[in-house]
Protein backbone atom coordinates (compact mmCIF):
# COMPACT_ATOMS: atom_id res chain seq x y z
CA UNK A 1 0.00 0.00 0.00
CA UNK A 2 0.96 3.62 -0.20
CA UNK A 3 2.39 4.14 3.26
CA UNK A 4 4.17 0.79 3.45
CA UNK A 5 6.39 1.75 0.56
CA UNK A 6 7.20 5.04 2.22
CA UNK A 7 8.47 3.99 5.67
CA UNK A 8 11.70 2.12 4.81
CA UNK A 9 13.20 5.21 3.23
CA UNK A 10 12.24 7.64 6.00
CA UNK A 11 15.90 7.98 7.07
CA UNK A 12 16.51 10.07 4.01
CA UNK A 13 15.14 13.09 5.85
CA UNK A 14 18.07 13.32 8.28
CA UNK A 15 20.85 12.64 5.78
CA UNK A 16 22.91 15.36 4.09
CA UNK A 17 21.60 16.36 0.67
CA UNK A 18 22.94 14.15 -2.10
CA UNK A 19 24.99 15.61 -4.93
CA UNK A 20 22.51 14.50 -7.59
CA UNK A 21 18.95 15.11 -6.39
CA UNK A 22 16.94 12.03 -7.33
CA UNK A 23 14.06 12.45 -9.72
CA UNK A 24 10.95 10.32 -9.78
CA UNK A 25 9.18 10.37 -13.12
CA UNK A 26 5.42 9.97 -12.78
CA UNK A 27 4.04 6.78 -14.29
CA UNK A 28 3.04 7.51 -17.88
CA UNK A 29 -0.60 8.01 -18.75
CA UNK A 30 -1.79 4.94 -20.54
CA UNK A 31 -5.21 3.80 -21.55
CA UNK A 32 -7.62 6.58 -20.73
CA UNK A 33 -10.91 6.76 -22.54
CA UNK A 34 -13.92 8.79 -21.56
CA UNK A 35 -17.19 6.88 -21.61
CA UNK A 36 -19.52 9.64 -20.42
CA UNK A 37 -21.09 10.39 -23.82
CA UNK A 38 -24.60 9.39 -22.66
CA UNK A 39 -24.34 12.06 -19.96
CA UNK A 40 -23.31 14.84 -22.31
CA UNK A 41 -26.29 16.77 -23.55
CA UNK A 42 -26.00 18.66 -26.78
CA UNK A 43 -28.98 20.82 -27.53
CA UNK A 44 -31.36 20.81 -24.60
CA UNK A 45 -35.10 21.01 -25.00
CA UNK A 46 -37.27 21.25 -21.90
CA UNK A 47 -40.59 21.22 -23.73
CA UNK A 48 -41.17 17.59 -22.87
CA UNK A 49 -42.84 15.95 -19.94
CA UNK A 50 -41.20 13.40 -17.71
CA UNK A 51 -43.52 10.60 -18.75
CA UNK A 52 -41.01 9.66 -21.44
CA UNK A 53 -38.13 8.97 -19.09
CA UNK A 54 -40.28 6.70 -16.93
CA UNK A 55 -41.60 4.88 -20.00
CA UNK A 56 -38.14 4.19 -21.42
CA UNK A 57 -36.84 3.25 -17.99
CA UNK A 58 -39.52 0.61 -17.61
CA UNK A 59 -39.25 -0.76 -21.14
CA UNK A 60 -35.46 -0.70 -20.97
CA UNK A 61 -35.25 -2.64 -17.72
CA UNK A 62 -38.21 -4.95 -18.23
CA UNK A 63 -36.40 -7.70 -20.24
CA UNK A 64 -33.62 -7.98 -17.66
CA UNK A 65 -36.10 -8.13 -14.81
CA UNK A 66 -38.22 -10.78 -16.50
CA UNK A 67 -35.06 -12.90 -16.88
CA UNK A 68 -34.21 -12.43 -13.23
CA UNK A 69 -37.75 -13.24 -12.16
CA UNK A 70 -37.73 -16.48 -14.14
CA UNK A 71 -34.37 -17.56 -12.74
CA UNK A 72 -35.49 -16.81 -9.19
CA UNK A 73 -39.05 -18.12 -9.08
CA UNK A 74 -39.00 -20.73 -11.80
CA UNK A 75 -39.31 -20.74 -15.54
CA UNK A 76 -43.02 -21.39 -15.55
CA UNK A 77 -44.21 -18.41 -13.52
CA UNK A 78 -46.88 -16.22 -15.02
CA UNK A 79 -45.60 -12.79 -16.02
CA UNK A 80 -48.61 -10.52 -16.11
CA UNK A 81 -49.30 -6.90 -16.79
CA UNK A 82 -51.50 -5.16 -14.24
CA UNK A 83 -54.41 -5.10 -16.65
CA UNK A 84 -54.29 -8.90 -16.94
CA UNK A 85 -54.32 -9.65 -13.21
CA UNK A 86 -56.88 -12.08 -11.85
CA UNK A 87 -57.72 -12.18 -8.16
CA UNK A 88 -56.11 -15.06 -6.34
CA UNK A 89 -53.67 -16.05 -9.08
CA UNK A 90 -49.97 -16.23 -8.19
CA UNK A 91 -48.08 -14.21 -10.73
CA UNK A 92 -45.20 -11.87 -11.23
CA UNK A 93 -45.52 -8.23 -12.24
CA UNK A 94 -42.75 -5.88 -13.39
CA UNK A 95 -43.31 -2.19 -12.81
CA UNK A 96 -42.14 1.13 -11.44
CA UNK A 97 -42.44 1.82 -7.75
CA UNK A 98 -44.11 4.91 -6.40
CA UNK A 99 -43.99 5.75 -2.72
CA UNK A 100 -46.81 7.97 -1.52
CA UNK A 101 -45.27 9.98 1.31
CA UNK A 102 -47.22 12.39 3.45
CA UNK A 103 -44.20 14.53 4.28
CA UNK A 104 -42.85 14.80 0.76
CA UNK A 105 -42.50 18.49 -0.09
CA UNK A 106 -45.13 19.35 -2.64
CA UNK A 107 -45.19 22.67 -4.42
CA UNK A 108 -48.94 22.40 -4.86
CA UNK A 109 -49.52 22.21 -1.14
CA UNK A 110 -47.26 25.16 -0.58
CA UNK A 111 -49.08 27.47 -2.91
CA UNK A 112 -52.51 26.26 -2.01
CA UNK A 113 -54.32 29.27 -0.63
CA UNK A 114 -57.08 27.45 1.15
CA UNK A 115 -54.66 25.76 3.51
CA UNK A 116 -52.76 28.92 4.46
CA UNK A 117 -49.88 26.74 5.53
CA UNK A 118 -46.33 27.84 6.11
CA UNK A 119 -44.14 25.71 3.83
CA UNK A 120 -42.49 22.99 5.85
CA UNK A 121 -38.77 23.40 6.65
CA UNK A 122 -36.38 20.93 5.02
CA UNK A 123 -36.13 17.76 7.10
CA UNK A 124 -33.26 15.28 7.11
CA UNK A 125 -35.63 12.42 6.34
CA UNK A 126 -39.14 12.50 4.95
CA UNK A 127 -40.18 8.95 5.77
CA UNK A 128 -43.15 8.14 7.95
CA UNK A 129 -44.80 4.92 9.06
CA UNK A 130 -47.90 5.81 7.05
CA UNK A 131 -46.10 5.75 3.66
CA UNK A 132 -47.50 3.42 1.01
CA UNK A 133 -45.97 1.67 -1.94
CA UNK A 134 -47.73 1.60 -5.29
CA UNK A 135 -46.60 -0.36 -8.32
CA UNK A 136 -47.21 1.19 -11.74
CA UNK A 137 -46.79 -0.23 -15.18
CA UNK A 138 -47.63 1.30 -18.54
CA UNK A 139 -51.35 1.52 -17.90
CA UNK A 140 -52.41 0.88 -14.32
CA UNK A 141 -51.26 1.06 -10.74
CA UNK A 142 -51.88 -1.11 -7.71
CA UNK A 143 -51.13 -0.78 -3.99
CA UNK A 144 -48.58 -3.18 -2.57
CA UNK A 145 -48.52 -4.81 0.84
CA UNK A 146 -46.84 -7.84 2.33
CA UNK A 147 -43.21 -8.93 2.33
CA UNK A 148 -41.85 -5.64 1.07
CA UNK A 149 -40.01 -3.04 3.12
CA UNK A 150 -41.95 0.16 2.53
CA UNK A 151 -39.55 2.41 4.41
CA UNK A 152 -36.47 1.22 2.58
CA UNK A 153 -37.58 1.57 -1.04
CA UNK A 154 -37.86 4.79 -3.04
CA UNK A 155 -39.91 6.08 -5.95
CA UNK A 156 -38.68 5.30 -9.41
CA UNK A 157 -37.19 1.87 -8.75
CA UNK A 158 -38.04 -0.80 -11.29
CA UNK A 159 -38.68 -4.14 -9.66
CA UNK A 160 -40.50 -7.43 -10.09
CA UNK A 161 -42.97 -8.56 -7.43
CA UNK A 162 -44.32 -12.06 -6.97
CA UNK A 163 -47.64 -12.55 -5.24
CA UNK A 164 -51.39 -12.47 -5.65
CA UNK A 165 -54.02 -9.85 -6.09
CA UNK A 166 -56.39 -9.64 -3.15
CA UNK A 167 -60.12 -9.14 -3.32
CA UNK A 168 -59.85 -5.58 -2.02
CA UNK A 169 -57.69 -4.64 -5.00
CA UNK A 170 -54.31 -4.65 -3.28
CA UNK A 171 -51.42 -6.86 -4.28
CA UNK A 172 -50.07 -9.15 -1.58
CA UNK A 173 -46.33 -9.48 -2.16
CA UNK A 174 -44.63 -12.73 -1.25
CA UNK A 175 -41.24 -11.90 -2.72
CA UNK A 176 -39.65 -9.21 -4.84
CA UNK A 177 -36.43 -8.80 -6.76
CA UNK A 178 -34.40 -6.09 -8.45
CA UNK A 179 -32.34 -6.09 -11.60
CA UNK A 180 -29.24 -7.20 -9.63
CA UNK A 181 -25.68 -6.57 -10.71
CA UNK A 182 -25.29 -5.81 -14.42
CA UNK A 183 -23.11 -8.10 -16.57
CA UNK A 184 -19.38 -7.90 -15.81
CA UNK A 185 -16.77 -6.11 -17.87
CA UNK A 186 -13.49 -7.87 -18.77
CA UNK A 187 -10.62 -7.01 -16.47
CA UNK A 188 -7.60 -5.34 -18.10
CA UNK A 189 -6.10 -3.73 -15.02
CA UNK A 190 -2.44 -2.80 -14.70
CA UNK A 191 0.12 -5.24 -13.32
CA UNK A 192 2.05 -2.72 -11.23
CA UNK A 193 0.85 -0.35 -8.53
CA UNK A 194 -1.09 2.53 -10.01
CA UNK A 195 -3.03 4.88 -7.78
CA UNK A 196 -5.96 7.19 -8.44
CA UNK A 197 -6.73 9.91 -5.91
CA UNK A 198 -10.40 10.62 -5.30
CA UNK A 199 -11.38 13.75 -3.41
CA UNK A 200 -14.63 15.64 -3.16
CA UNK A 201 -16.10 18.59 -1.37
CA UNK A 202 -13.06 20.89 -1.46
CA UNK A 203 -15.48 23.62 -0.39
CA UNK A 204 -13.58 26.66 -1.59
CA UNK A 205 -15.05 30.04 -0.81
CA UNK A 206 -16.31 29.08 2.61
CA UNK A 207 -16.23 31.53 5.47
CA UNK A 208 -13.60 29.61 7.49
CA UNK A 209 -10.31 28.89 5.79
CA UNK A 210 -9.41 25.87 7.90
CA UNK A 211 -9.57 23.42 5.04
CA UNK A 212 -7.27 25.53 2.88
CA UNK A 213 -4.12 24.27 4.58
CA UNK A 214 -5.28 20.70 4.12
CA UNK A 215 -6.07 21.35 0.46
CA UNK A 216 -2.59 22.76 -0.05
CA UNK A 217 -1.08 19.72 1.67
CA UNK A 218 -3.07 17.46 -0.64
CA UNK A 219 -1.77 19.30 -3.69
CA UNK A 220 1.78 19.13 -2.34
CA UNK A 221 1.61 15.39 -1.74
CA UNK A 222 0.30 14.72 -5.24
CA UNK A 223 2.86 16.95 -6.93
CA UNK A 224 5.66 15.36 -4.91
CA UNK A 225 6.65 18.42 -2.90
CA UNK A 226 5.98 16.86 0.46
CA UNK A 227 7.79 14.16 2.36
CA UNK A 228 11.08 12.37 1.83
CA UNK A 229 12.14 10.37 -1.17
CA UNK A 230 9.91 7.50 -0.06
CA UNK A 231 6.74 9.52 -0.18
CA UNK A 232 7.81 11.20 -3.37
CA UNK A 233 8.40 7.92 -5.13
CA UNK A 234 4.96 6.76 -4.01
CA UNK A 235 3.35 9.97 -5.20
CA UNK A 236 4.90 9.31 -8.59
CA UNK A 237 2.60 6.28 -8.84
CA UNK A 238 -0.52 8.45 -8.70
CA UNK A 239 -1.76 8.46 -12.29
CA UNK A 240 -4.86 10.59 -11.92
CA UNK A 241 -6.80 12.85 -9.59
CA UNK A 242 -10.60 12.91 -9.72
CA UNK A 243 -12.38 15.74 -7.93
CA UNK A 244 -15.90 14.52 -7.37
CA UNK A 245 -17.97 17.65 -7.01
CA UNK A 246 -18.63 20.50 -4.57
CA UNK A 247 -15.43 22.31 -5.38
CA UNK A 248 -17.18 25.43 -4.17
CA UNK A 249 -18.69 25.72 -0.73
CA UNK A 250 -22.37 26.12 0.00
CA UNK A 251 -21.66 29.66 1.24
CA UNK A 252 -21.02 30.80 -2.30
CA UNK A 253 -24.65 30.04 -3.07
CA UNK A 254 -26.13 32.77 -0.88
CA UNK A 255 -28.53 34.86 -2.81
CA UNK A 256 -29.27 37.75 -0.44
CA UNK A 257 -28.19 40.17 -3.13
CA UNK A 258 -31.32 39.33 -5.09
CA UNK A 259 -33.60 40.68 -2.40
CA UNK A 260 -31.60 43.81 -1.68
CA UNK A 261 -32.00 47.07 -3.59
CA UNK A 262 -29.77 47.57 -6.58
CA UNK A 263 -27.87 50.55 -5.13
CA UNK A 264 -26.74 48.45 -2.15
CA UNK A 265 -25.42 45.62 -4.29
CA UNK A 266 -23.80 47.59 -7.07
CA UNK A 267 -20.19 47.02 -6.10
CA UNK A 268 -20.54 43.56 -4.56
CA UNK A 269 -19.27 40.55 -6.37
CA UNK A 270 -20.77 37.10 -6.20
CA UNK A 271 -18.92 34.97 -3.68
CA UNK A 272 -18.38 32.29 -6.26
CA UNK A 273 -16.12 34.54 -8.37
CA UNK A 274 -13.40 34.64 -5.73
CA UNK A 275 -13.86 30.95 -5.02
CA UNK A 276 -13.46 30.01 -8.67
CA UNK A 277 -10.25 32.03 -8.84
CA UNK A 278 -8.92 30.03 -5.89
CA UNK A 279 -10.01 26.83 -7.59
CA UNK A 280 -8.19 27.86 -10.75
CA UNK A 281 -4.96 28.37 -8.84
CA UNK A 282 -5.24 25.01 -7.08
CA UNK A 283 -6.02 23.24 -10.32
CA UNK A 284 -3.08 24.95 -11.99
CA UNK A 285 -0.72 23.46 -9.43
CA UNK A 286 -2.25 20.03 -9.88
CA UNK A 287 -2.48 20.11 -13.67
CA UNK A 288 1.19 20.88 -14.16
CA UNK A 289 1.95 17.54 -12.60
CA UNK A 290 -0.90 15.04 -12.97
CA UNK A 291 -4.06 14.58 -15.12
CA UNK A 292 -7.09 15.91 -13.24
CA UNK A 293 -10.77 15.19 -13.88
CA UNK A 294 -13.09 17.80 -12.44
CA UNK A 295 -16.71 16.81 -11.86
CA UNK A 296 -19.29 19.45 -10.93
CA UNK A 297 -21.36 19.08 -7.79
CA UNK A 298 -24.40 20.52 -6.10
CA UNK A 299 -22.90 23.93 -5.34
CA UNK A 300 -20.82 24.39 -8.48
CA UNK A 301 -21.60 26.89 -11.25
CA UNK A 302 -23.26 24.57 -13.72
CA UNK A 303 -26.80 23.38 -14.36
CA UNK A 304 -28.86 21.97 -11.51
CA UNK A 305 -30.52 19.02 -13.22
CA UNK A 306 -28.77 15.69 -13.58
CA UNK A 307 -26.68 14.97 -15.65
CA UNK A 308 -24.70 18.06 -14.73
CA UNK A 309 -22.67 19.38 -17.63
CA UNK A 310 -18.94 20.08 -17.29
CA UNK A 311 -17.79 23.40 -15.89
CA UNK A 312 -16.97 25.82 -18.64
CA UNK A 313 -13.26 26.29 -19.35
CA UNK A 314 -13.54 30.06 -19.47
CA UNK A 315 -13.92 30.01 -15.66
CA UNK A 316 -10.50 28.39 -15.28
CA UNK A 317 -8.22 30.34 -17.61
CA UNK A 318 -4.94 29.38 -15.98
CA UNK A 319 -5.59 25.69 -15.59
CA UNK A 320 -7.37 25.06 -18.90
CA UNK A 321 -4.18 25.95 -20.77
CA UNK A 322 -2.99 22.47 -19.79
CA UNK A 323 -4.24 19.41 -21.59
CA UNK A 324 -4.14 17.44 -18.34
CA UNK A 325 -7.24 19.21 -17.09
CA UNK A 326 -10.43 17.43 -18.07
CA UNK A 327 -13.75 18.98 -17.23
CA UNK A 328 -16.25 16.17 -17.10
CA UNK A 329 -19.92 15.57 -16.41
CA UNK A 330 -21.63 14.39 -13.27
CA UNK A 331 -22.16 11.32 -13.34
CA UNK A 332 -18.79 10.41 -14.79
CA UNK A 333 -17.73 7.20 -16.46
CA UNK A 334 -14.28 6.45 -17.83
CA UNK A 335 -11.80 3.69 -18.48
CA UNK A 336 -8.57 4.38 -16.61
CA UNK A 337 -5.86 1.90 -17.45
CA UNK A 338 -8.44 -0.74 -18.26
CA UNK A 339 -10.41 -0.19 -15.07
CA UNK A 340 -13.95 1.15 -15.50
CA UNK A 341 -14.80 3.98 -13.11
CA UNK A 342 -18.34 5.20 -12.59
CA UNK A 343 -19.33 7.78 -10.03
CA UNK A 344 -21.40 10.77 -9.08
CA UNK A 345 -20.94 13.79 -6.87
CA UNK A 346 -23.35 12.35 -4.33
CA UNK A 347 -26.65 14.07 -5.13
CA UNK A 348 -28.29 10.78 -6.06
CA UNK A 349 -27.22 9.06 -2.84
CA UNK A 350 -28.17 11.95 -0.56
CA UNK A 351 -31.55 12.19 -2.25
CA UNK A 352 -32.24 8.50 -1.61
CA UNK A 353 -31.04 9.04 1.97
CA UNK A 354 -33.77 11.62 2.48
CA UNK A 355 -36.58 9.37 1.24
CA UNK A 356 -35.50 6.00 2.56
CA UNK A 357 -34.83 4.42 5.92
CA UNK A 358 -31.30 3.41 4.82
CA UNK A 359 -28.79 5.39 6.87
CA UNK A 360 -25.45 4.26 5.58
CA UNK A 361 -24.17 5.88 2.38
CA UNK A 362 -22.28 2.75 1.43
CA UNK A 363 -25.43 0.69 1.88
CA UNK A 364 -27.36 3.07 -0.39
CA UNK A 365 -24.55 2.98 -2.97
CA UNK A 366 -24.64 -0.80 -2.98
CA UNK A 367 -28.42 -0.75 -3.23
CA UNK A 368 -28.39 1.48 -6.32
CA UNK A 369 -25.97 -0.94 -7.96
CA UNK A 370 -28.23 -3.90 -7.15
CA UNK A 371 -31.30 -1.98 -8.33
CA UNK A 372 -29.55 -1.42 -11.66
CA UNK A 373 -30.07 2.34 -11.74
CA UNK A 374 -27.77 5.18 -10.68
CA UNK A 375 -30.50 7.51 -9.50
CA UNK A 376 -34.04 6.10 -9.28
CA UNK A 377 -35.46 9.16 -7.51
CA UNK A 378 -34.76 11.37 -10.54
CA UNK A 379 -36.94 13.05 -11.81
CA UNK A 380 -39.37 12.74 -8.90
CA UNK A 381 -37.41 14.45 -6.13
CA UNK A 382 -34.09 15.08 -7.87
CA UNK A 383 -33.90 17.34 -10.90
CA UNK A 384 -33.33 15.51 -14.14
CA UNK A 385 -33.23 16.37 -17.83
CA UNK A 386 -36.36 15.13 -19.66
CA UNK A 387 -34.83 12.35 -21.69
CA UNK A 388 -37.13 10.69 -24.19
CA UNK A 389 -35.10 8.20 -26.13
CA UNK A 390 -33.26 6.29 -23.43
CA UNK A 391 -32.49 6.58 -19.76
CA UNK A 392 -28.70 6.97 -19.43
CA UNK A 393 -28.80 6.25 -15.69
CA UNK A 394 -29.64 2.58 -16.20
CA UNK A 395 -26.58 0.47 -15.42
CA UNK A 396 -25.87 -1.75 -18.41
CA UNK A 397 -22.36 -2.86 -17.49
CA UNK A 398 -20.85 -3.43 -14.10
CA UNK A 399 -18.10 -0.90 -13.37
CA UNK A 400 -14.95 -1.90 -11.49
CA UNK A 401 -14.99 1.15 -9.26
CA UNK A 402 -18.29 2.76 -8.27
CA UNK A 403 -17.99 5.90 -6.15
CA UNK A 404 -20.06 8.73 -4.81
CA UNK A 405 -18.72 12.03 -3.54
CA UNK A 406 -19.58 14.21 -0.57
CA UNK A 407 -20.39 11.44 1.83
CA UNK A 408 -20.16 12.10 5.57
CA UNK A 409 -17.50 9.38 6.12
CA UNK A 410 -15.06 7.35 4.14
CA UNK A 411 -16.23 3.78 3.53
CA UNK A 412 -15.25 1.18 1.01
CA UNK A 413 -16.24 -2.37 0.20
CA UNK A 414 -15.34 -4.90 -2.43
CA UNK A 415 -18.48 -6.52 -3.80
CA UNK A 416 -18.31 -9.88 -5.53
CA UNK A 417 -21.09 -10.86 -7.88
CA UNK A 418 -22.36 -14.23 -8.98
CA UNK A 419 -21.27 -13.79 -12.58
CA UNK A 420 -17.72 -12.84 -11.63
CA UNK A 421 -18.28 -9.12 -11.11
CA UNK A 422 -15.83 -7.39 -8.80
CA UNK A 423 -16.83 -3.88 -7.82
CA UNK A 424 -15.06 -1.60 -5.41
CA UNK A 425 -17.66 0.65 -3.76
CA UNK A 426 -16.20 3.86 -2.36
CA UNK A 427 -17.94 6.70 -0.56
CA UNK A 428 -15.58 9.66 -0.88
CA UNK A 429 -15.87 11.92 2.16
CA UNK A 430 -16.39 15.64 2.14
CA UNK A 431 -12.87 17.12 2.22
CA UNK A 432 -13.80 20.44 3.82
CA UNK A 433 -15.24 18.58 6.83
CA UNK A 434 -13.07 15.48 7.17
CA UNK A 435 -9.85 16.47 5.35
CA UNK A 436 -9.75 12.95 3.96
CA UNK A 437 -9.22 11.82 0.39
CA UNK A 438 -9.09 8.28 -1.04
CA UNK A 439 -6.34 6.47 -2.87
CA UNK A 440 -7.44 3.58 -5.05
CA UNK A 441 -4.87 1.03 -6.18
CA UNK A 442 -5.85 -0.07 -9.68
CA UNK A 443 -3.82 -3.25 -9.57
CA UNK A 444 -5.80 -5.03 -6.86
CA UNK A 445 -8.82 -2.72 -6.34
CA UNK A 446 -7.97 -1.74 -2.79
CA UNK A 447 -8.77 1.59 -1.30
CA UNK A 448 -7.06 3.59 1.40
CA UNK A 449 -8.00 6.91 3.00
CA UNK A 450 -5.39 9.64 3.33
CA UNK A 451 -6.04 12.38 5.89
CA UNK A 452 -4.43 15.79 5.99
CA UNK A 453 -5.09 17.10 9.42
CA UNK A 454 -3.56 20.36 10.45
CA UNK A 455 -3.10 21.50 14.02
CA UNK A 456 -6.24 23.26 15.09
CA UNK A 457 -6.80 25.54 18.10
CA UNK A 458 -8.03 22.66 20.25
CA UNK A 459 -5.23 20.16 19.61
CA UNK A 460 -2.62 19.60 22.26
CA UNK A 461 0.75 19.51 20.47
Amino acid at each position, binding site marked *: MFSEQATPMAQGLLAPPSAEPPTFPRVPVSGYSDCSQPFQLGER*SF*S*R*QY*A*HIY*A*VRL*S*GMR*PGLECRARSRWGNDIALRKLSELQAGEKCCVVGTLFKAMQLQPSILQEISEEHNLVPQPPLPKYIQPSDELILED*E*LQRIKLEGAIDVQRLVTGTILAVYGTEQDDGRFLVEDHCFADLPPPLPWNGPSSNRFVLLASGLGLGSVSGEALLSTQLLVDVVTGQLGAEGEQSCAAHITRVILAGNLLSQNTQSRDTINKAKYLTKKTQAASVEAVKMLDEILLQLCTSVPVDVMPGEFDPTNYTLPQQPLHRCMLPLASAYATLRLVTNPYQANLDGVRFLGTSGQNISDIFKYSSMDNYLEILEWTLLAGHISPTAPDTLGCY*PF*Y*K*SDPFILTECPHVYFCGNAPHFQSKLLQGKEGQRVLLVTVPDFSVTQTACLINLRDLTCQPITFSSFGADSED
Partner: protein
Amino acid sequence: MEQPRRITDSFPRRRRGSRRPPGRLKDKKDKDKDEEKVQVKVRDCSRSPSQPPPDPALLEMLRRFDLSWEYGPCTGITRLQRWERAQELGLSPPGAIRDALLEHRDNPDVTYRWVWDGMGC
Protein backbone atom coordinates in the same frame (compact mmCIF):
# COMPACT_ATOMS: atom_id res chain seq x y z
CA MET B 1 -68.28 12.78 -42.35
CA GLU B 2 -65.90 15.71 -42.31
CA GLN B 3 -62.37 15.45 -41.02
CA PRO B 4 -62.17 15.30 -37.21
CA ARG B 5 -61.38 18.72 -35.69
CA ARG B 6 -58.12 19.29 -33.93
CA ILE B 7 -56.96 21.87 -31.37
CA THR B 8 -54.52 23.23 -33.95
CA ASP B 9 -57.35 24.09 -36.33
CA SER B 10 -57.88 27.35 -34.48
CA PHE B 11 -54.35 28.39 -35.48
CA PRO B 12 -54.20 27.85 -39.24
CA ARG B 13 -50.76 27.96 -40.69
CA ARG B 14 -50.50 30.44 -43.55
CA ARG B 15 -47.40 31.32 -45.46
CA ARG B 16 -48.29 34.49 -47.32
CA GLY B 17 -45.44 35.78 -49.45
CA SER B 18 -42.88 35.34 -46.73
CA ARG B 19 -40.33 34.34 -49.35
CA ARG B 20 -40.58 37.68 -51.15
CA PRO B 21 -37.80 40.05 -50.09
CA PRO B 22 -39.28 43.28 -48.66
CA GLY B 23 -39.20 46.47 -50.66
CA ARG B 24 -39.61 44.95 -54.07
CA LEU B 25 -43.36 45.49 -54.33
CA LYS B 26 -42.86 48.88 -55.86
CA ASP B 27 -40.89 47.48 -58.75
CA LYS B 28 -43.21 47.32 -61.74
CA LYS B 29 -41.29 44.60 -63.58
CA ASP B 30 -41.66 42.12 -60.76
CA LYS B 31 -45.32 42.86 -60.16
CA ASP B 32 -46.52 40.16 -62.50
CA LYS B 33 -44.22 37.62 -60.94
CA ASP B 34 -45.48 38.58 -57.50
CA GLU B 35 -49.08 38.23 -58.61
CA GLU B 36 -48.41 34.77 -59.87
CA LYS B 37 -46.72 33.84 -56.65
CA VAL B 38 -49.66 35.15 -54.61
CA GLN B 39 -52.10 33.21 -56.70
CA VAL B 40 -50.16 30.00 -56.28
CA LYS B 41 -50.08 30.54 -52.52
CA VAL B 42 -53.84 30.99 -52.28
CA ARG B 43 -54.50 27.75 -54.05
CA ASP B 44 -52.21 25.61 -51.95
CA CYS B 45 -52.91 27.08 -48.49
CA SER B 46 -50.45 25.61 -45.97
CA ARG B 47 -48.93 22.71 -47.85
CA SER B 48 -45.78 22.72 -49.94
CA PRO B 49 -46.85 22.81 -53.57
CA SER B 50 -44.73 19.88 -54.75
CA GLN B 51 -46.52 17.08 -52.84
CA PRO B 52 -50.11 15.85 -53.05
CA PRO B 53 -52.14 16.31 -49.85
CA PRO B 54 -52.00 13.32 -47.46
CA ASP B 55 -55.25 11.41 -47.53
CA PRO B 56 -57.42 11.13 -44.40
CA ALA B 57 -56.82 7.40 -44.10
CA LEU B 58 -53.12 8.06 -43.64
CA LEU B 59 -53.79 10.68 -41.00
CA GLU B 60 -56.14 8.26 -39.25
CA MET B 61 -53.44 5.58 -39.24
CA LEU B 62 -50.98 8.04 -37.78
CA ARG B 63 -53.43 9.04 -35.05
CA ARG B 64 -53.91 5.42 -34.13
CA PHE B 65 -50.13 5.09 -33.92
CA ASP B 66 -50.07 8.09 -31.55
CA LEU B 67 -52.73 6.65 -29.31
CA SER B 68 -51.39 3.10 -29.08
CA TRP B 69 -49.95 2.75 -25.60
CA GLU B 70 -47.29 0.16 -26.40
CA TYR B 71 -44.91 2.69 -27.89
CA GLY B 72 -44.90 5.05 -24.93
CA PRO B 73 -46.11 8.61 -24.53
CA CYS B 74 -46.68 10.64 -27.68
CA THR B 75 -46.61 14.23 -26.39
CA GLY B 76 -43.66 16.53 -26.90
CA ILE B 77 -41.82 14.50 -29.56
CA THR B 78 -42.31 14.12 -33.30
CA ARG B 79 -43.90 10.93 -34.63
CA LEU B 80 -40.66 9.96 -36.31
CA GLN B 81 -38.74 10.29 -33.03
CA ARG B 82 -41.36 8.13 -31.33
CA TRP B 83 -41.17 5.54 -34.10
CA GLU B 84 -37.39 5.37 -33.85
CA ARG B 85 -37.49 5.07 -30.10
CA ALA B 86 -39.97 2.20 -30.35
CA GLN B 87 -37.71 0.52 -32.89
CA GLU B 88 -34.67 0.79 -30.63
CA LEU B 89 -36.57 -0.65 -27.68
CA GLY B 90 -37.50 -3.67 -29.79
CA LEU B 91 -41.25 -3.03 -29.91
CA SER B 92 -41.30 -3.46 -33.74
CA PRO B 93 -43.58 -0.64 -34.83
CA PRO B 94 -45.07 -1.09 -38.34
CA GLY B 95 -42.70 0.02 -41.07
CA ALA B 96 -45.50 1.53 -43.15
CA ILE B 97 -45.77 4.35 -40.64
CA ARG B 98 -42.12 5.27 -41.01
CA ASP B 99 -42.41 5.29 -44.80
CA ALA B 100 -45.42 7.54 -44.59
CA LEU B 101 -43.66 9.88 -42.17
CA LEU B 102 -40.60 10.18 -44.38
CA GLU B 103 -42.69 10.68 -47.48
CA HIS B 104 -44.63 13.57 -46.01
CA ARG B 105 -41.75 15.05 -44.08
CA ASP B 106 -42.62 18.64 -44.94
CA ASN B 107 -46.19 18.49 -43.84
CA PRO B 108 -46.57 19.66 -40.24
CA ASP B 109 -49.85 17.80 -39.83
CA VAL B 110 -48.02 14.58 -40.49
CA THR B 111 -44.79 15.07 -38.56
CA TYR B 112 -46.89 16.36 -35.69
CA ARG B 113 -45.20 17.11 -32.47
CA TRP B 114 -48.34 16.72 -30.36
CA VAL B 115 -48.50 19.71 -28.08
CA TRP B 116 -50.93 20.88 -25.46
CA ASP B 117 -52.51 24.25 -26.22
CA GLY B 118 -49.80 25.14 -28.67
CA MET B 119 -47.04 25.14 -26.04
CA GLY B 120 -43.64 23.70 -26.82
CA CYS B 121 -42.16 23.47 -30.28
